[in-house]
């Protein structure tokens, strides 16, 4: 008998896990709340560190998940736990009896409006990293018209307790460096500044793009968080930060400021978590069972987690996490789930 597996979230984690589980012979049902599969990846133009088109990556993920039963525009209405399985009522009226549920609800981008001092949504020339990607994809944005000076404010909604997000979002430094290069490619005469607190370029090739940004594109990296943004009479921006390396306050007039909005736990993911009474940690991301050694099981038997639902991750990390989750689901469905007699004991011992 084929087990039903419900995967919540049609982003990279959900797609990759669907593909893997389908290959293992399971009956996979994938639901996605938005009309389109791909999550944030579908909105991105190019990916760090080597600037591959996001569409290419998404294309291969979608091809991998071909044949998976997929409902877009669909959310979870209610979940009931049966003895071992879950009875899930979807918003499209369908009810699924699922033996395992994989929550791949991903992340939300930090709402940059909350950092009031940066004036996103108030000043004409302030945009976010996502807006810039959209510009790269569509080629048009009223804010971008031959900007002479462009700034990137790192850590917007990351490492900011007052904004309710203490943790690092992991991907923004590399994204900022990538976008700084891309902006320089689009506007070679522009001066580009990156305001950072620490450059967390930990991954493979990340340091290379940092060096490239400096060496080939002359991007200026200023160590200091953007503290205040105001609008000048001519609509340009007055940006203030401290150059902590020089130990002096600094100001600069910019034509465009790009806010590197960080990762926050997905709000709709949280809603589903509430239905399941899933445990959430202080940072807002779902708690995992077994700590760092086993990161794909939730504390509730039969509920699995993958991707950014359990904290900020890069795309390769998300995909690896999804594959690992698929393995975990398979292990559960072959070793624990079928044994009706000892199920509870097995769960106690091995979940």
């Amino acid at each position, binding site marked *: 008998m084929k087990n039903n597996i419900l995967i919540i979230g049609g982003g990279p984690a959900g797609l990759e896990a669907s593909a893997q589980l389908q290959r293992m012979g399971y009956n996979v049902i994938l639901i996605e709340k938005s009309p389109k599969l791909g999550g944030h990846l579908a909105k991105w133009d190019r990916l760090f560190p080597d600037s591959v088109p996001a569409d290419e990556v998404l294309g291969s993920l979608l091809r991998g998940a071909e044949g998976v039963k997929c409902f877009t525009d669909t959310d979870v209405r209610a979940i009931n736990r049966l003895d071992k399985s879950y009875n899930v009522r979807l918003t499209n009226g369908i009810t699924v009896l699922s033996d395992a549920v994989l929550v791949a609800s991903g992340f939300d981008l930090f709402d940059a409006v909350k950092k009031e001092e940066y004036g996103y949504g108030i000043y004409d020339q302030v945009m976010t990293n996502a807006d810039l990607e959209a510009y790269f994809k569509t080629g048009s944005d009223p804010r971008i018209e031959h900007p002479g000076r462009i700034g990137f404010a790192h850590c917007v909604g990351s490492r900011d307790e007052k904004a309710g997000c203490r943790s690092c979002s992991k991907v923004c430094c590399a994204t900022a460096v990538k976008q700084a290069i891309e902006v320089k490619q689009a506007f070679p005469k522009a001066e580009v500044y990156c305001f950072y607190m620490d450059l967390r370029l930990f991954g493979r090739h990340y340091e290379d793009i940092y060096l490239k940004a400096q060496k080939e594109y*002359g991007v200026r*990296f200023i160590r200091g968080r953007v503290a205040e943004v105001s609008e000048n009479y001519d609509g340009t921006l007055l940006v203030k930060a401290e*150059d902590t*390396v*020089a130990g*002096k*306050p*600094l*100001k600069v*007039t910019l034509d465009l400021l790009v806010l590197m909005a960080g990762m926050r736990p997905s709000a709709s993911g949280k809603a589903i978590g509430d239905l399941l009474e899933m445990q959430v940690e202080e940072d807002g991301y779902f708690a995992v069972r077994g700590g760092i050694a086993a990161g794909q099981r939730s504390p509730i038997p039969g509920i699995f987690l993958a991707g950014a639902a359990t904290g900020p991750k890069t795309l390769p990390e998300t995909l690896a996490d999804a594959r690992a989750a698929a393995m975990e689901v398979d292990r559960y469905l072959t070793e624990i789930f079928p044994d009706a007699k000892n199920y509870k004991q097995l769960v106690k011992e091995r979940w």
Partner: protein
Amino acid sequence: MVDFGFTLVPSSRINLDLFDKEKYEELVSMEPDVRICMACGSCTAVCTAGKFVHTSLREAMEDIFNAKTDNALESLRACQLCGKCAMVCPRGINTRHLIMSITKVYSKK
């Protein structure tokens, strides 16, 4: 003018709008390595002259970016070009040539 016994205090703020792009480009064409510093401070730490007086290539580069070029020259006046900084620079910056190039470009008014 009335003397009130106090007056406007000059700002210590860095104003990047004063950055002289032309001169900087001249420097870059002379020694492109000025772009790749990551402000680790190794050069300053090993500096032979720095044992006696305040000398810092790292600061000088920062000062150039921050439109305080006179400070940059000041930071390098005591340099003996011994090359220790070149030996320790993790990015392999050609420090000696950079120091001379900075002096060359920014000491002509």
